[in-house]
């Protein structure tokens, strides 16, 4: 099994994700510079957090239109896994991997704090290790993280069980106070139509070791690895043959 973590100019969580995958989860992981393109099939691709292109224009807008994105879209179209974290989520929205947009926080400043999330979906390849309704603690760090989508899109996401995580209070209740950036319906993690793409604003790689305050985020990576091992999603090997 082999993961790729894509680095853009301005990515700054690439090595953290790599550390978690390699050293905590024991998965072979390549750091791939965006100009090098994806020259081999991978089981999963992670688009990490950071400030690609200095967040110029809109966060993620310019990275979303670089040539490597066509490799990532082709990978996703094969049904293989893509995880977009923070800036990676913004890029995923900007390139149409998922609907909607992550835009400037309701209170327009950078927020960097621990948040509680309620796990809404436990059937996707990214969330099988969680219990439904489980409350987890994962930090956010962003200025453009408020999820916005048209009402009909939000309805469809709800109906198709494509909302993975919502901001909530420590008891699992979704309130305006527990929604740090003003996201629509407290949504901060959502899945593509085929469930093989997850984008999320909170940073699971920053909550993957108990010594750092929480290992609640590790289950995102565990779920991905388990789903690939179980053959629930296409592997790189299947694509090669």
């Amino acid at each position, binding site marked *: 099994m082999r993961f790729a973590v894509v680095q853009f100019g301005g990515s700054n969580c690439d090595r953290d994700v790599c550390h978690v995958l390699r050293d905590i989860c024991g998965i072979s992981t390549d750091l791939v510079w965006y100009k090098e393109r994806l020259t081999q099939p991978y089981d999963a691709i992670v688009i990490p957090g950071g400030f690609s292109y200095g967040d110029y224009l809109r966060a993620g807008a310019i990275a979303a239109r670089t040539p490597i994105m066509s490799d990532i879209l082709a990978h996703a179209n094969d049904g293989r896994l893509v995880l977009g974290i923070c800036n990676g989520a913004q890029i995923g929205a900007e390139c149409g991997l998922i609907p909607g947009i992550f835009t*400037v926080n309701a209170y327009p400043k950078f927020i960097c704090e621990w948040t509680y999330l309620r796990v809404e979906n436990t059937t996707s390849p990214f969330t099988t290790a969680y219990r439904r309704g489980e409350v987890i603690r994962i930090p956010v760090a962003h200025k453009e993280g408020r999820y916005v*989508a048209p009402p009909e899109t939000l309805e469809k996401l709800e109906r198709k069980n494509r909302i993975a995580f919502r901001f909530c209070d420590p008891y699992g209740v979704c309130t305006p106070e527990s929604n740090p950036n003003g996201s629509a319906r407290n949504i901060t993690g959502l899945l593509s139509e085929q469930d093989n793409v997850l984008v999320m604003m909170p940073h699971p790689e920053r909550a993957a070791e108990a010594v750092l305050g929480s290992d609640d985020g590790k289950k995102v990576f565990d779920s991905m690895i388990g789903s690939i091992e179980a053959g629930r999603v296409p592997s790189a090997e299947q694509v090669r043959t």
Partner: protein
Amino acid sequence: MMKFTIDITIGLKEGMLDPEARAIRHALSNLGFPTDNLSTARVFQITLDAPDSDAARDRAEEMCARLLANPVIHRYTVEVRS
């Protein structure tokens, strides 16, 4: 081919939360300038070659659709100046 200068103005759609505008409006009010409404927008001024003004406008519209605006939250106007 002729040179055209184009002003593209990109703002938020009606009803979209504009936290920056809200903060500015509040600050203006504190200075004694109460306002009924205030919105912000971004202007891109572009110069390019095109056969005519319609073609220049088409190019600008395509730029908005493909990069400059995000249709989820933005509306835009294109003004072609020769």
